[in-house]
């Protein structure tokens, strides 16, 4: 066992690969860009959802007023000719 410890203590450190620091810096840079992109995407998604909701509400209210106008405005002969028979 003493040989093992001696072997380990005599072992020089391995050199990290040449471009390791550049890769670390690139990853950190990417992390920043991704974070920014995430924020922008989140904002864009929020705007899109709001716009879609507004559009849906506008369209719904237009559809409502076109399909179900006020009862007084309906010119319905069945209703106007309606009579009750006892």
């Amino acid at each position: 066992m003493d040989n093992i410890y001696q072997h380990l203590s005599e072992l020089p450190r391995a050199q990290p690969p040449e471009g390791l620091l550049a890769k670390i810096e690139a990853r950190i840079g990417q992390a920043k860009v991704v974070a920014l992109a995430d924020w922008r995407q989140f904002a864009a998604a929020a705007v899109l959802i709001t716009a879609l909701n507004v559009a849906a509400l506008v369209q719904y209210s237009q559809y409502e007023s076109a399909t179900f106008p006020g009862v007084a405005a309906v010119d319905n002969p069945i209703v106007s000719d309606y009579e009750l028979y006892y």
Partner: protein
Amino acid sequence: MPQTTDRALIAGIANGDAQALRELYKMHGERVYNTALTYLQKSTDAEEVSQDVFTKVWRSAAGFKAESQVTTWLYRIVVNTSLTALKKRQRRSIFGTIQASHDPPDFHHPEAKMEEREENKALFSAIYRLPDRQKTAFVLSYVEELPRQQVAEVMGLSLKAIEGLLMRAKKRLRITLRPAFPD
């Protein structure tokens, strides 16, 4: 005063100073890479873990607590990141993405002398097979040659617990390595 320098560098990194990160890498990059290499025993994986470690340092430098040494903090990050990478590898091995025969990898330390490569391979393979806590205590004590107190701080355990882990690790290694190191 390396501690003062280390702390100044961490403070710089916390303020987004890229030059401080370069300096920290210059001082500790080799240490981080070699520790990861001992755990993962594959240079590409050790490189990947080193990238993760320095990215984590960059992100969490502001949260560094000055009561521990920077090297202790760095070792804690590299040990945890390496163990996580090993677990991922074991999961891939279970699901058949990598061949089980490559776990442990066929590894000898790149700086091992030609005539010692077989012994070196057996030794690193035996270290790889140790349970996580025994492995960490052994790697930090005998490969990284940290003082026992610092090993205890990195692992968040008492000195007595570290001695116990080392005793069990050495016993296990002795049994595994008897054929390769008959003396």
